[in-house]
Each structure stands twice: as C-alpha cells, then as structure tokens.
C-alpha cells in the first residue's frame, strides 16, 4: 500500500465526526419541527438519508450484478463498492428506523399512520375509504415490521458479500468467488423486492392516495445512476493520490461512462412512462400527484415545482444523455467527472420532486389546500442532512479500507481487471 492512500484512509475519524455532527444538528431541528407539528424539517432527515440509501443500494446491486456476470473489468472498482455498502444498515438505523418507530415523527411524515389526521375535505384519515381499501398493506404494524425487515435484510446481504470477499484476500480460495455467485443469484431478486417496497414505504407512501406500479423501477434506475455518478467521483479521487493511483485506466472510465449513459436513458424511459400512463388514463387518484407538481392550487398558474420538473427533463436527462453520446466524454477523466457531478446534483432534485410536494390544509384556499413550495430555507436543511449522511458514509468507507486489501488481490479475475482493455 502506498503512503498517500494510507494517509487518505487514516482520515476516516474526521469524516465520521463531521457526519455525526451534521446528522445530530439535522435531527435537533427535526425534533424542534415535530414539536411545532411542522413535517418539513423531519422530511429533511428522511431526504438526506434516502439520497445515500439510494447510492448504497445502487452500489449493492452493481456489486451483485458484476459478480453474477463475472465482469472482467469490475474487481478493482467492486472492492470500493464493498467498502461503501457496509454503511447501508447504519444509515437506515440512524434515520428511517427512528423516523418510523417514534410516533410523533411517523404521524407527521406518513399521515395515514395517524387515524385522527384531518384531510383537506374535513374528514379524518381513519374514515378515508381509499385508505381502508389499502389498509392490509398500509397499517402501522405491518409498516414497522417491513422497516425492521429492510434493516435486517440489507444488514445481512451486505455483511455476507463483504465477509466472503475479504476472506478471499487471506485464504486465496477461488471457491469463494463461486459462493459469491450463489449469494448474488439469490440476492438480486431479493434486493429487487426489498428496494421496491422500501421505495413504496419511504417515498410513495408519503402521499398515500397515489400509486404507481413503476415506482420501484424508478427508484432502482435512480439508485444505479447515483451509484455510478458517485463511483466516478470517488474513483477520480482514488486514482489521484489514493489506492487506485496507476490502476484505474481509460477503459475503466469508458465502461463506467457507458453504464451511466445506459441508465440515464433507462431512468428517462421509466420516469416518462410513469407520467405518460397517468396522463393517458387521466384518473383523478393518479393525476393529482402530477397536478400539485405543476400548478399552484390558489392561482392556477405554474408553480416553482414546474421549474423543477423542467430541470429534471433538460438538466437531469438531456444534458447528461447528449454529453455521454460522445466517446471522448467517457474517456477524458475531467469530462466524465463533470457529467457525474451533473447526475449527482440532478439526483437531489429528483428526490425533492418526489418527496417534498404535499397538500397542506388551508381553509381559505379554493380547493382546501396549498402545496408546500420548492424554494424555502428548508433546502439548506436538506443539504445539511445530505452532507451529514454523506460524510458518515465516506468515513465508514475509509474505515473499511483499513480492514481489507484495497483491491481484491486474490480475486481470480484481478489481472484481467487491472489490464482491462476496451
């Protein structure tokens, strides 16, 4: 191991402390907000953690997918994914678990868990026939069982994937690669079900009238995009004074760039299809979700959420899509880094678009509600939470890198990966 990368890894406590300070600050503001029955600061904690849950679930899927396809390019990069995904259960424990289990937070974020909550129509949630029809799934007991299941499942799968892979460094046993194939073969469909339900519970259920069967796929597409963007940013740093210095080559960047292009298109395909089907069917239970993201219910004019949706179309799809079409964008490190940065920032906007707008009771408004605005001081709190969970994840990532070889030196495909050629 070279000196600069030891130096980098030894800085893990700084990141963990910085992350924890920011997370505690975000939580204190959430507690204060909950005292005033304001859901917005509580949502910041959920948003900050969901951003990194998304990144880490994407990396978990990429780890298993490259295992099962025996991808020759992957081993040197996959070890960094394995370092990252160890943080997934910890992020869930520090955010979604307390948000779901403490009733005052749960009632603010997931209104359907509070039977006495008043709807804009003046009725209580408990008497809502739409909720009653869904109550076999959307009831607090089953909800908490599912949240527990996510933590246990993602805890076990990440532990097993890391454990066998790190064991190979010491035991030099190629059979561990076969065992990891088997783990991935079971893990991919199981994780697909888990991430779909996680997206349903943590994001779609924030607005319980609405439903989209494509929501899980949207979350998967977003997760892989964010995971790839984070990988490009991370490996850029690691190949400039880290453990991938002199290892990461043009062909690795090319393959990451190609995957970013593919999943940019896939994300657009899923997001558009969801909109297109709801637009075509034109059913009020579905269209209201897009209506509150386009119009101000008082004036009837386009709201600031319309601007966010335009940003998603042009800034989060067309800009990265058109740039990634060019071969040179995928091989020149600086250009790929810029595009990864655009996708990383766009992912925050996509989460804002999906999680923040909600109908807030307002008796004086013509339809009985107003929509929470996009532009507000809470955006800074969201960014604080994203920074906090991000610093924690990076800190735990650097800590993991002191526990195992920084590249899998006894992986059967390690030479193929180091000498990877376009």
């Amino acid at each position: 191991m070279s000196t600069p990368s030891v130096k980098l890894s030894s800085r893990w406590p700084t990141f963990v402390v910085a992350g924890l300070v920011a997370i505690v600050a975000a939580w204190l503001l959430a507690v204060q907000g909950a005292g005033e029955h304001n859901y917005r600061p509580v949502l910041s904690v959920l948003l900050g953690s969901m951003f990194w849950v998304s990144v880490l679930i994407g990396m978990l899927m990429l780890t298993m997918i490259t295992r099962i396809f025996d991808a020759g390019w992957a081993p040197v990069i996959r070890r960094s994914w394995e370092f990252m995904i160890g943080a997934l259960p910890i992020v869930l424990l520090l955010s979604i678990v307390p948000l779901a289990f403490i009733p005052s937070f749960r009632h603010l974020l997931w209104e359907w868990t509070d039977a006495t909550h008043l709807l804009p129509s003046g009725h209580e949630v408990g008497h809502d026939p739409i909720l009653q029809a869904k109550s076999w799934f959307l009831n607090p007991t089953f909800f908490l069982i599912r949240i527990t299941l996510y933590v246990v499942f993602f805890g076990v799968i990440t532990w097993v994937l890391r454990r066998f892979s790190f064991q190979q460094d010491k035991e030099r046993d190629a059979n561990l690669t076969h065992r990891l194939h088997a783990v991935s073969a079971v893990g991919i469909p199981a994780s697909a079900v888990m991430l779909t339900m996680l997206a349903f519970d943590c994001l779609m259920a924030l607005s319980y009238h609405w439903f989209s069967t494509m929501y899980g796929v949207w979350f998967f597409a977003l997760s892989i995009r964010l995971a790839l963007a984070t990988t490009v940013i991370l490996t850029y740093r690691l190949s400039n004074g880290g453990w991938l210095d002199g290892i990461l080559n043009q062909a690795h960047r090319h393959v990451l760039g190609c995957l970013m292009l593919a999943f940019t298109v896939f994300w657009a395909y899923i997001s558009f299809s969801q909109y297109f089907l709801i637009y075509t069917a034109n059913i009020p239970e579905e269209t209201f979700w897009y209506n509150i993201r386009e119009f101000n219910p008082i004036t009837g004019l386009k709201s600031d959420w319309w601007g966010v949706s335009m940003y998603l179309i042009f800034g989060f799809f067309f800009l990265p899509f058109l740039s990634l079409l060019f071969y040179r964008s995928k091989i020149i490190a600086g250009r790929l880094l810029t595009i990864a940065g655009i996708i990383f920032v766009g992912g925050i906007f996509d989460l804002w678009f999906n999680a923040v707008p909600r109908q807030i009771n307002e008796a004086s408004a013509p339809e009985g509600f107003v929509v929470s605005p996009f532009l507000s001081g809470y955006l800074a709190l969201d960014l604080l939470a994203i920074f906090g969970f991000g610093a924690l994840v990076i800190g735990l990532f650097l800590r993991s890198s002191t526990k195992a070889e920084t590249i899998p030196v006894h992986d059967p495909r390690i030479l193929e990966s180091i000498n990877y050629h376009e």
Partner: protein
Amino acid sequence: MNERNESIHGVACTFRSPSDVFHAAEKVRDAGWKNWDVHTPFPIHGMDQAMGLPRSKVPRLTLLGGVTGFITGCLLTWFMNSYDYPLVVGGKPFWSPIFPFPVMYECTILFAAFGTFFGQFILNRLPQHHHPLFDLPQFARTSDDTFMIVLEARDKNFHLDESRNFLLSLGGQEITVIRE
C-alpha cells in the same frame, strides 16, 4: 519515379506469430502508410492502436439516423393527427409532444438502426463480391495459422521493390505480389 502499375493490387507478406505481425504493424503505421491492412485468424488486442486506426465513423451515421427518425416521428404524428385529419382522442390536444412520444421514440430507434446498418455497409464498401486477395492461396490460411500484412498499391508510399524490401526488413516470411 513511382512504379505504379494498374494491374497490381499490392504486396502481401506472411508472418509467423501475433507478436511479429503486431510489431511489424507498428512500423508500417510509423512509416506513414494509409492504405494497408492486417489479416489474422483471431482478434489481437491493441491491434487498432498498433495500426493507428481511428475510431469508427458509424456512430455519426447512427446519430444522423436517430435525429432524422425523431423529426420524422414528430412530422408524421403532427400531419396525421393535427393537420390532415384532426381527431379528438381522450380529450387530449390534437398534437403535443407527450401522447405521440412512443411513435417519435420508436422512429428514432428504427432510423438509428437503419443508419447503423446501412452506414456500416457503405463505410465497408459492401456488398463486394470479389477481392483480389481471394486469388491468393496464402490468404485462406489467415483464417487458420498465418498472419498477413497487405500494402496496397494505391498508397502514396507504394513502390514495388522498396515495399517488398520494407516488408522483409520487418521480419516477413513470404512475399507475394497481388494482381488485380
């Protein structure tokens, strides 16, 4: 004093191993040759760079096809649904970029595929039913155990005797002049 002869296609030279032909290719590239080729029984990694080949131009034709297809899809749906025979469907506008998007999208893919498929035909100058190399008995062996470099007469560096000696100096085994 360029000894150009209309009846000569070029000079072929066989090599024994992948590394011989690889290093010979690098020297041919460095000597500034443009019209020449390497024939091997299997793909050799890094041969593109050793030959100094630029990247394929097919992706440009794919993009051109895709853009053409997208515009065709827009015009098609606009002409049919909004201009030639306006029809209200599900209370939607006669034309908007949303409802006919699947048509625009499919046309983009179809035309991009046409651009790719016919583009590579044009760039590879296909179909071509005969090639002077096919008359060469050694050429058949390049799909078995022989590696071959062919320098073509239309290159400005071509000079029959000099080119022959050049190939020998690169470690070539058997030199043959290919006639048209």
